[in-house]
């Protein structure tokens, strides 16, 4: 055969294969993969910006569901990881078609959630929020579809960070505490101010230089930020990032760190001074059971904006081995005062002028 013949045969073969591919696809789609047929178990879709076991934020948020599974609840958690904001809409539509509950672990997907939830009015969504006032604004705006449940982590941060501030204020020897923060949003400001409130309650002269990294995870810049802050004299660092690079940096520089989201004291036993350990399963238990029982629409209606606090065991502060008992007791007393309402916090959502 000449080249013309060969290319023609090749073309025919390839076209045939393509037709098989198309037929294959059609068969698969129509006979096998249709959203209702596929699922046996009750399925919770978890949408993450990062990965379920990398860093601090995403594992903590996923643990809200996976802890429930470990405790015996029979749901199947399915993860969508590494979701970019520009792809969020598409991922959420896929999730909503197959899951019984869509748990969106971060507010950065808010726009996509609002859009997709309207298209799936009978699917329950849970959306995380940081700042309570933003959540409230959204709740009251009339734009929130009734199948989206909001919960805010503002108190989770603020209450536990105040206690961390008390602890750090009691333990710092240089009276300088450095902060490594993700961005300059109100949520980060709240973290900064909450720790400062605790620090100033012990000693109003503590200095608090900070570095804003600009993104949720940048290990090199974070590591460098620790070095820089140590150069400024800090002996305690607050790690506001979504990973442990700052604690690693603190370990390298032989100083102490304050950690948030999950318990990393076993990985950094001599570095972590205090750790705000979040456990969202306490809060998420209610909504998940409501969805399983089929009563979620009322639950969503009556429960407004959830808050994860000391009181409902959504967060706790754990201390490192270097913290003497007197300091730990003092902090725990303060924690109890917050729980029973005798201690009211005055943090701010704006950056301090100094």
């Amino acid at each position: 055969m000449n080249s013309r013949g060969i290319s023609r045969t090749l073309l025919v073969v390839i076209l045939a294969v393509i037709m098989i591919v198309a037929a294959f696809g059609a068969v698969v789609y129509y006979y096998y993969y249709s959203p209702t047929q596929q699922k046996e178990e009750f399925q919770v879709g978890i949408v993450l910006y990062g990965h379920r076991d990398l860093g601090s934020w995403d594992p903590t948020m996923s643990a809200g569901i996976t802890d429930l599974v470990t405790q015996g609840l029979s749901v199947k958690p399915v993860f969508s990881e590494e979701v970019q904001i520009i792809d969020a809409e598409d991922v959420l539509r896929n999730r909503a078609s197959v899951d019984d509950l869509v748990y969106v672990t971060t507010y950065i997907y808010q726009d996509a959630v609002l859009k997709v939830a309207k298209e799936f009015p009978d699917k329950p969504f849970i959306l995380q929020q940081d700042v309570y006032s933003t959540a409230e604004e959204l709740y009251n705006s009339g734009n929130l579809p009734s199948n989206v449940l909001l919960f805010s982590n503002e108190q989770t941060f603020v209450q536990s960070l105040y206690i961390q501030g008390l602890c750090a204020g009691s333990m710092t020897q240089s009276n300088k505490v450095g902060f490594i923060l993700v961005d300059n949003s109100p949520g980060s400001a709240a973290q900064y101010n909450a720790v400062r409130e605790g620090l100033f309650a012990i000693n109003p002269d503590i200095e608090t230089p900070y570095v804003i990294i600009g993104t949720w995870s940048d290990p090199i810049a974070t590591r460098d930020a620790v070095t820089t802050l140590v150069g400024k004299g800090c002996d305690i660092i607050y790690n506001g990032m979504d990973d442990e690079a700052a604690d690693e940096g603190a370990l390298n520089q032989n100083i102490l760190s304050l950690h948030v989201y999950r318990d990393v004291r076993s990985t950094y036993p001599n570095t972590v001074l205090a750790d705000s350990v979040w456990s969202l399963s306490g809060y998420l238990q209610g909504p998940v059971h409501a969805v399983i029982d089929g009563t979620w629409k009322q639950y969503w209606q009556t429960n407004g904006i959830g808050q994860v606090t000391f009181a409902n065991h959504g967060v706790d502060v754990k201390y490192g081995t270097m913290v003497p008992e007197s300091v730990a007791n003092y902090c725990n007393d303060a924690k109890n005062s917050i729980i029973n309402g005798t201690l009211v916090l005055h943090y701010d959502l704006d950056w301090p002028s100094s």
Partner: protein
Amino acid sequence: MASFSPLFWVRKKLENIHFNRDTLRSLLPALISVVAVFITLCIAFVYISISTGTGFFDLWGSFYYAAFGSASAIGRMLTKATHILIVTIGLIIAFKSGLFNLGGVGQMAVGAILGAGAGLFLPLPIPLRVIIGFGSAFLVSGAIAGALGWFKARFNIDEIFTTLMVGFVLVAILNYFIDGPWGQTGSAEAKTPVVPGSFPYMLPGLTPLIFLALALIPIAYYLLNRTPLGFEMRLVGSGKSVAQNQGINASKIAIISMIISGGICGLAGAGQVYGDMTRIVVGMPGYFGFYAIPAAVMVNYKPHYALFSSIFLSILIMGSLGLTSVGIISDFGEVLIGIVFIVTIAVNRLGRKK
């Protein structure tokens, strides 16, 4: 009426293209790419179903469902294809003149900044803002690309790197705007307020932006193949000395083609704001600028086929986003596109007369 629809004119132009053996030969790589994808997916799915226990057909199902399974999936797929398509047309114009404009991402960023800026801040009626937004996106992007083209023409500074690096810088500037002066106040996440004048949806996920993209195809084809400028551009692209013998100022042509190329990529950026995201969010412009490179190469820089490669890549993207629902992270889509790209390049050698 049909004759006033842009699609009619597109079809008319396409009819002028003769379908002969050369056309078949240039379609061959595309067909083989499809087969390559199919085989790759089969292999990957076998590996994944063995290692994670997800069913082989589940994987195929979620892939197809995400790409084709619903009206909104097709709409979203077409929107992604639109972004890629516009940038691809821009790249094709540069490539035909022998210049490698790899700054598609950055030029999209500039277009997004100007488009959103015009929409948010100009004290003019909204349609006028949109026009100025797109127009300024074209001009400024084009100017930047043209400047880099000038550096290549005058000093032989390789535009491959300057466009690429400047691209990264421009994306950083975009991030500055959304984090700083244009950031939505009170929001924890870096994003601008919704830009007024954002296009309405015709189908779920699909805006009239696609008409802009489709209109660019015959414009680009006409420019390259039916105008003297296009002829000169292609001549310069095939060899500088050939062009100079004809008395053409190669430098001038190079700069003009870069201006047009950059301008079109800028339009893509403004298009992403108005026609898809309705605002600028962190993560924009995303991967579209880079995926336009395979889209352009795979069709051998022919604008009339660019739609197909854009749709093909978009299907791969949507499919891999759907796979995130069954636990495969979105990186897989990048691997797929890379393999398709390499296979197409390899096959191109087969299809071309030697």
